[in-house]
């Protein structure tokens, strides 16, 4: 998941949605497996399955909006559950959806074969890169012309002029704060990390909280994401223009690391083990007053489940935070969207396209789904919980870089930053280690010679 790969919270939500569908999904799955069986098995089990098939058809009916195969692989959180459910409902009995936090470990392998197991992958602007690198998704221009005339242009993701994905939601990290605590110390809502540090010092000095700052700083993907935000906020460039040569060992890199370390002094000492879920739990326990958090995760913090009224009633979202005087917010913009596999028949591609287009049509928006995300479809009405993401977009934040080797750098960042935060080496040494680790990996992957 772009907002933390671990998704206990998301899973609980998903389970609620899934539970209601379990009964007829079981039948669908059996039917789906039936399609993949060998001829011999079909002959022997034919009668049994035929009986099941009749029951399923009676129970579910055929979605009937398309003819062909649909099999979705994607991340698992409420907004994606909603999209997948609508697409499966359209495609009918045989459609399948495999939604899991580990989606990016299986999507390339599941789309490499011919025909591809998954006809569509739901991805974000970081994870689409692997699919493009491996050449397993197809340009959608013809399909959009034939079946997708009513998809607004702003939802179409184009790479080199070719439509590669259809986005349906936006996401970003932004400030989340406790209005009552800020009022108590008489501080304004922070707009920069410098403000956050000042407010945190006051909160600690007045004895309100010992560790008032939160953040998903778990070593690995989350920590790398926080550095990416911070480094963009300092105005740094990750690579030399137009090449895969990394260049982060500079003043901006040091500034970003120093700010992260300064913030970590106000965090729970265990911060290197805190992913988005653990940080949210700290928030709900009332231990944190200021944090940089994913827009898609703030809904859970503001509802009345899991925390005391003084916490959830005072939980407010702010805009993206700045660092230094570069004028670029220290956050990244993300979209989630769907793709169509390359190695599928034209008929299946068309069916997948039609079903997924139905899955992200404005019809899926209702009272329950409206606040699950910042939807890009027409008819989306923002709730207070969505203001942070919208503010990040309005402030001209940078989208997460969509370059083929960013993933390698992300891994190298996640493996090395903890050494600096723990004080075992200097910022320059850490940045040099990151560059060296990235360079070795990029050579192996053919990006550098």
């Amino acid at each position, binding site marked *: 998941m772009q907002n933390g790969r671990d998704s206990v919270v998301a899973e609980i939500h998903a389970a609620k949605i899934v539970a209601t569908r379990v009964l007829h999904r079981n039948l669908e799955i059996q039917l789906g497996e039936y399609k993949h069986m060998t001829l011999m098995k079909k002959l022997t089990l034919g009668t049994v399955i035929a009986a099941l098939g009749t029951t399923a058809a009676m129970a579910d009916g055929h979605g009937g909006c398309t003819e062909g195969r649909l099999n979705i692989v994607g991340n698992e959180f409420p907004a994606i559950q909603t999209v997948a459910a609508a697409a499966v409902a359209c495609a009918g009995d045989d459609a399948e959806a495999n939604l899991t936090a580990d989606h*990016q*470990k299986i999507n*390339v392998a599941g789309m490499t074969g011919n025909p591809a197991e998954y006809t569509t992958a739901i991805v974000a*602007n*970081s*994870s689409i*890169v*692997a699919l*493009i*690198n491996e*050449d397993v998704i197809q340009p959608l221009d013809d399909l959009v012309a034939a079946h997708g005339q009513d998809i607004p242009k*702003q939802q*179409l*993701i*184009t*790479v*080199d*002029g070719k439509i590669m994905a259809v*986005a349906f939601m*936006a996401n970003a990290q932004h400030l989340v704060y406790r209005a009552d605590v800020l009022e108590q110390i008489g501080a304004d809502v922070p707009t920069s990390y410098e403000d956050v540090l000042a407010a945190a010092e006051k909160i600690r000095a007045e004895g309100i909280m010992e560790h008032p700052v939160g953040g998903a700083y*778990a*070593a*690995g993907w989350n920590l790398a994401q926080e550095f990416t935000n911070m480094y963009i906020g300092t105005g740094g460039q990750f690579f030399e223009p*137009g090449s*895969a040569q990394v260049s982060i060992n500079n003043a901006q890199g040091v500034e970003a690391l120093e700010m992260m370390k300064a913030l970590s002094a106000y965090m*729970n*000492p*265990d*911060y*290197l*083990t805190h992913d988005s879920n653990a940080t949210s739990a700290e928030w709900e326990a009332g231990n944190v007053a200021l944090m940089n958090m994913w827009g898609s995760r703030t809904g859970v913090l503001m509802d009345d489940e899991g925390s005391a009224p003084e916490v959830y009633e005072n939980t407010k979202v702010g805009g993206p935070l700045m660092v230094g005087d570069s004028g670029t917010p220290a956050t990244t913009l993300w*979209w989630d969207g769907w793709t169509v596999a390359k190695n599928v028949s034209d008929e299946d591609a068309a069916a997948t396209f039609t079903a997924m287009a139905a899955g992200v049509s404005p019809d899926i928006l209702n009272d329950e789904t409206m606040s699950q995300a910042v939807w890009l479809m027409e008819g989306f009405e923002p709730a207070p919980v969505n203001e942070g993401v919208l503010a990040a977009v309005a402030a001209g*934040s940078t*989208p997460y870089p*969509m*370059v*083929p*080797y*960013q*993933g*390698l750098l*992300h*891994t190298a960042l996640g*493996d090395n930053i*903890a050494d600096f935060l*723990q004080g075992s*080496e200097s910022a320059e*040494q850490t940045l040099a*280690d990151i560059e*060296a*680790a990235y*360079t*070795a*990996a990029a*050579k*192996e*992957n*053919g*990006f550098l*010679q």
Partner: protein
Amino acid sequence: MKHKTFFWFVFPSVLLMILFIALPLVSVVTQSLYSKHEQVIVEVENCGPFGCTKATTVDQEATAALEEAEPLGKWAGLDIYKDRNHLAISEVGQAWINADGLPDFGRTLMNLPFYKALGFTITYTAIVTPLTIILGFFIAIAVNSVARAMRGPTIFFSLLPMIVTPLVGSLIIFWMVDARGILGTGLQWLASDPSLSVKASTPLMWAMLMFYGVWHSAPFAFIVYYAGLQTVNQDTLEAAMIDGASRWERIRYVVVPHLAPLTTFIALIQLMDNFRVFEPIISFSAAAHATSLSYAIFNDLGGETRLLSSAAATSVLTIIFVAMLLSPVLVRTWRDFGTQK
């Protein structure tokens, strides 16, 4: 047994071993000798809901032609083994020349990802294996002297750590030692240090991982020893008692020698298992403090861009290290086997 009969008798096992052990090994070794083709990068304009940006992408047509010609990838020989993310030959050489004494060299070495992982893996194996064997032995002795009626339930409870799925078991401990968990708070109270946190300190994190390792695998040693204890010759024990041997002397001079071959067996299995330590690092979110070779492989495969050759090279190195580690035990077993004939 006739040769033909023997052949058909072992054929299924041999076939399965070739399919599931030999071939994957060949595949891993092959993979580690190749790297990806040079990727042809082109500058493009990407557009989406947030406007258009200049970016780069892989030129699929140009890259596809290269891949068509050599589907395995570019021959890399031992380059991947030698690069910084693995054996780091040139970096280690440089460090050796530039180092200001051995401790400084050690620090530089531990800053290289492979040696950092190897350092923890070897420490973990060296500490957890003997502790597991010793603890398992004492549990077995203790359970063996429990009244017969109580033995069933005692054995069941002693086995629980092994029955619990590793991920679940380590998650439970992880939550208990959290600064706000029962063990974590207990430790803070014991040390009278309210800021003490197991998860924030590298030595404590290592200790916790090793504690978990012993907790998890002691039942295995226990159950093997317990089975062995049932075969101890009662006459010898009685003779020792008549000779006035104390309980400790009976254990030292009768039971321990009798169980020695089992110790070799447990050591063999535990060395292999411990060298592949993985689950606790994931569920303790310990990657900031400790990485192992298995974790490095997982990390290579878990990123948005998979590093197949890198993971393969680490796998081969792991296999080589396990083989080196086991060789003394294997040689010993072989010799024992030879003398028994």
